[in-house]
């Protein structure tokens, strides 16, 4: 009996507050917009019995999805989200790998401190970390003032409200997600493997290419997914750092819902975003599985 309670309480909670809401999203994505409260139709009407349920199902269709394909705003937004997430992921890898490598090579007594310095930003507000770049990247911002002062540029650079600012924001906020799995992989790397490679005729650099990179592959893959997946649906960063021309699907969904009050279309946007996300999520799971098997 106790076991039943133990299972049932979290189970029911998740069913009601996680699964059911999804079914509702899915259902509303098949409904039509209406000027009513709630602003969609049909609604399920149990009072008229079978008839009500049949009417309900008859009222559902794929019109919203068709609409998404006709208005190029949406597919452009999906494509541009994918592109921004992909570029940011590559940039994070380029920035994060040397840091993870440096941490893994650091003297033992330094490691806990370095680790804490990487994790500390996790605990500070995401919103504030994104916001901190607004003051740096704006036209009169810290970066432009600095560059003008050094004389590298004579005109302030336009960075805030462009995609560049979005890349910087994503790399900055998600960098720990990239560093930690790579660090975990590099830390396990046995130094004698590199020595063996050198012994067999590799230079330092070729040993890095042939041994270090392949053996940290799992960490690289995990880190890339951990950045790519949340970046794809990101809302805060494009809203604060991006410009009007920055198209990201999270922002589109938010505006569709709050500004246009078009709930069915917003739901359809959400359903498609989920479908797109399933691919990287499944690949990520596979990678984790493989890693566990390799270790186990």
């Amino acid at each position: 009996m106790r076991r039943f309670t133990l299972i049932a309480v979290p189970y029911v909670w998740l069913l009601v507050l996680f699964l059911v809401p999804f079914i509702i999203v899915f259902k509303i994505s098949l409904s039509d917009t209406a000027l009513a409260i709630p602003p969609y139709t049909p609604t399920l009407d149990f009072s008229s019995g079978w008839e009500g349920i049949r009417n309900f199902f008859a009222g559902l269709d794929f019109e919203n999805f068709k609409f998404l394909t006709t208005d190029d705003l949406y597919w452009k937004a999906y494509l541009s989200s994918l592109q921004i997430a992909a570029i940011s992921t590559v940039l994070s890898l380029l920035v994060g790998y040397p840091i993870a490598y440096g941490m893994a090579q650091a003297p033992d007594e330094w490691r806990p401190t370095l680790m804490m310095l990487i994790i500390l930003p996790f605990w500070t507000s995401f919103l504030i970390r994104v916001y901190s770049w607004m003051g740096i990247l704006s036209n009169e911002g810290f970066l432009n003032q600095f560059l003008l002062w050094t004389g590298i540029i004579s005109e302030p650079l336009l960075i805030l409200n462009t995609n560049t600012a979005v890349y910087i924001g994503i790399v900055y906020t998600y960098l720990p997600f990239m560093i930690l799995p790579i660090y975990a992989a590099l830390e396990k790397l046995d130094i004698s493997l590199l020595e063996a490679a050198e012994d067999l005729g590799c230079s330092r650099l070729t040993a890095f290419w042939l041994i270090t990179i392949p053996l940290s592959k799992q960490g690289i893959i995990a880190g890339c997914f951990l950045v790519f997946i949340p970046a794809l649906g990101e809302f805060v960063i494009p809203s604060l750092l991006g410009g009007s021309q920055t198209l990201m699907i999270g922002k589109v969904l938010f505006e569709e819902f709050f500004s246009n009050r078009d709930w069915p279309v917003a739901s359809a946007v959400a359903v498609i975003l989920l479908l797109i996300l399933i691919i990287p999520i499944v690949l990520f799971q596979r990678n984790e599985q493989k890693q566990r098997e390799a270790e186990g």
Partner: protein
Amino acid sequence: MAQTVFAPWLDADEKPLIQFKNVTKRFGDFVAIDNLTQDIYAKEFFALLGPSGCGKTTMMRMLGGFETPTEGQILIAGQDMKGVPPNKRAVNMMFQSYALFPHLSVFENIAFGLKREGKPKPEIEARVEEMLRLTRLTKFAKRKPHQISGGQRQRVALARSLAKAPKLLLLDEPLGALDKKLRQDTQFELMDIQEKTGTTFVIVTHDQEEAMTVASRVAVMDEGEIIQVATPADIYERPNSIYVADFIGDVNILHGHATRADDGYDIAYAEGKAPLHAKTSNDLGASAKCALAIRPEKVSITAKKPAKVTNAIKGKIIDIAYLGNLSTYHVEIEGGHMIKAQTANTTRLERRSFTWEDTVWLSWTDTAAIVLEG
């Protein structure tokens, strides 16, 4: 046909392959190798033997190019190795941990060094096949290192370091992870390979039996210094110090005072006892403190005092260790010393003539014991 004895170190014209010249290696304040000078010759099977932490791995790593000497010079084939990185040395190392690349197959591991040389593909393949045959791994070529057994991994590591046909192969405790049976098989395999390929081997081990089995010469080390270098037989029969005598095999040490007598020394080991006599060419000076080292198997054990024996001591059996083929008797002699005597068990156990508390006589010839400074 009489075989010529392989002993290039006795030949003054022979050029050594490796020369350590006053090499010192310090880690911070810690002296890992202390002013060491040693020659090793081509085609030798040179064993470094010593307790853990005495600097064996450090010597190997300096040869491989992974550590640089703090002072002194290392020459390989007459060339100073200073500043030569590991990938530019005709030396290969077999790592204590094997260091097999986990993401590459057995075949690719063995081919790794050959590919770096940019050899044509068919040539690489032929060489790898040859190595696989030599180490009897052909069946496992496609497996990854975690899919084969410990013994097979060790052979992959060996094949990988042999593939480039190095002038010099360094083996750092190569057989440490293997069980006894597999270890003995592999030791013979190693000697076989060495004979076939003519490579010079330097092997590190802390297993004295292994060193005795495989080596042409054994160097016994302690705290960064080489104490003695000699053939296995010499190390065993003619150790130059208590340390070496004690380190290799089992030994009884009796401390005493030596006085010259005939062609050797008389050693007084206890108050009011007849001195022991040992023949030796060693010169301790006229009269000195010394130690007498006697191997247990050279001590005979009898019920009555044997006639016509130089050295005989009475004692009481305290303990008997039965080892199957041998038995070791722990005998307390008058004065409280414990002496071990070993006999071969040629008769069955129940017909053994001595038992606990028996009074017995221990005896040995005047050439059985070695007089050492002490």
